[in-house]
């Protein structure tokens, strides 16, 4: 992937005890324009590279803002942002890409956020307000832990905002999805469990899949170390416990197209000729898994891997 953009950290804000907001400014010309729902990849000095939703106003090309939740089982990305990143630090980012765009023909936009899943909906709200489009935001969080931007959203959205302070008040998907007008679209960002529940509930209420849009905030998880052989470049690589296979390939100078780095978009699909794979993606069909893997999240196990790279 070409065209990384050098940026400087201009502000760091602790939004909740577990969520930090980071503001980034270009070191060169203005930052690229983007559409609501876009994310950027951030290359951290410790070699970790994660994707984060942009939460700033899409019209603002002077700054980008992202928010990072401290992950208990961090492989080093979120921990670095929370413990080491400083104002003034210089980083590189990949240009914005959008895997979670607004549906331009929706008559009503129903947004469902859980915890840090609020981030893509910040520019959604800005954009939908600017368009004067009908929408509502349903936001589930834990008070004083993952309740980022609640006060700000209340001021901005008024009655459009519906808060679910778990566990006192739970998000009732059946209630949210029932008796909606034709042309309604629902967008969800949160843990996989929420997305699974949403698809199940929506299906039972007769929603078509084309009106359901979701983004999991998935990222690579640690695992056992393993080694891989590359068929075409004749290299042998060792992947450490908290490194993804994709990161190991990049460290060895092998570039694989990629966007989400979370096993969702399908860009980094790579063929393998032998070995055992622990598949962790949400993209490949069972048939495809026999010969392909997603190196952004999936790992080798058992018999050593031979990749078609």
């Amino acid at each position, binding site marked *: 992937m070409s065209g990384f953009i050098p940026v400087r950290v201009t502000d760091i804000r602790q939004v909740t005890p577990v969520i930090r907001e980071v503001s980034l400014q270009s070191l060169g010309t203005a930052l*690229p*324009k983007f559409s609501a729902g876009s994310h950027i990849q951030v290359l951290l000095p410790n070699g970790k590279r994660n994707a984060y939703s942009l939460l700033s106003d*899409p019209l603002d090309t002077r700054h980008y803002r992202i928010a990072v939740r401290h992950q208990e089982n961090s492989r080093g990305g979120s921990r670095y942002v929370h413990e080491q990143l400083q104002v003034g630090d210089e980083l590189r980012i990949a*240009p914005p890409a959008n895997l979670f*765009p607004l549906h*331009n*023909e929706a008559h009503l936009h129903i947004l469902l956020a859980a915890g840090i899943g609020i981030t893509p909906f910040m520019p959604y709200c800005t954009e939908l307000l600017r368009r004067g489009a009908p929408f509502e935001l349903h936001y589930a969080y834990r008070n004083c832990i993952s309740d980022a931007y609640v006060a700000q959203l209340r001021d901005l959205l008024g009655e459009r905002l519906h808060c679910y302070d778990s566990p006192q008040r739970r998000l009732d998907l059946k209630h949210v999805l029932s008796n909606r007008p034709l042309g309604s679209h629902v967008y969800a960002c949160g843990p996989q469990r929420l997305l699974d529940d949403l698809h199940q509930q929506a299906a039972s209420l007769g929603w078509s899949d*084309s009106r359901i849009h979701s983004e999991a905030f998935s990222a690579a998880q640690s695992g056992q170390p393993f080694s891989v052989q590359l068929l075409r470049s004749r290299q042998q690589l060792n992947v450490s416990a908290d490194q993804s296979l994709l990161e190991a390939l990049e460290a060895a100078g092998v570039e694989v197209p990629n966007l989400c780095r979370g096993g969702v978009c399908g*860009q980094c699909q790579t063929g393998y000729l032998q070995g055992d794979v622990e598949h962790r993606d949400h993209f490949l069909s069972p048939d495809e898994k026999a010969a392909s893997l997603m190196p952004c999240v999936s790992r080798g196990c058992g018999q050593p891997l031979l990749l078609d790279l």
Partner: protein
Amino acid sequence: MSLTFKPVGSYHQDFSFRNSEEAIQRFPFPFPEDQYMYSVNLEPATSRNPGSIFEHCFDIDEHYRSEMVERNRVLERDPRRCLVMPHMQTAAWDTLAMLMEHLSQDYPQWFALSRDGDQWQWQNHALGIDQRFTYGDADTLPCEPLEYIGRQVQGDFALLDQREGDLFMDAGIVTCPADWSLAFDAGMSFKQWHSPVPMAHQMGVFDRALKYLVNIQVGQPVRRLNWTLTINPRLDTSPETFHEWGSDRASITPGNVGSLVHLRVELQVMARLPRSNALMFSIRTYLISMDELVTQPAWAQRLHRVLRDLPDAIADYKGMTLYRQTLVDWLSQFDSQA
């Protein structure tokens, strides 16, 4: 290479359009082999070969003034050649920004753009335009933004909304189509507007192309060449005006084939529009008469073989069945092995 414009030539009635020697040299001859078949011939639209049509994302050439006169003529007759559905307004402004940014950067002697926030000034020295406007406010332009910029850039533009993993033709400015209609295709999905193309659906070409196109990212445009044949240097071969040009196909004789039959090549560039997430599909058309083309012996020989062996279904779709044999016979004189 300095760019100069020819005096205005016409693409209708007296058809005074001609290519200069330089224009023939840079004509995008589209056949890499002696035979042609559909393929997903997409490549990254990176700058290459200075002076060629691949140097800049949006190529401006010696026919600029002629083509802009033609654009105005067609739009005056049929304003529906420019169409922007309400949800495509952002994409129209995206297009204006992208074109102004590229043209002012690539051809600074002809175009200049200065910006202060949303206060923009656009200067087009080729057409004597100096326009101040507020970006995003169509009332500050003489007309709607896609039409405004479309009247100043060669080639057609379709703006495709992306949703549900598909592309929809929901906006565009199209005055030089190779026998397709924006008004007819408006609102259609990718496979719907390609449904008349023979063979390619069964080959899976459109499945693969769509998958590729929906993944195009901001700043990483791709391009391909497409081709057909046209009688006379007529840019506007649209279904709306078929009664004016359809019968030309029956007029080809061994005596006039060299001057009347033109190879028509489209440089198609597909670029992600950053604010709207729409896909811009630009179609830049190049015309060359057979007499001009055969000044390049390698092209003449190859075109003979391609047209001679072209599957009938493709020849029929491209509208050349009536005069194909006359043309192939005439081209055979340039093929040493014929």
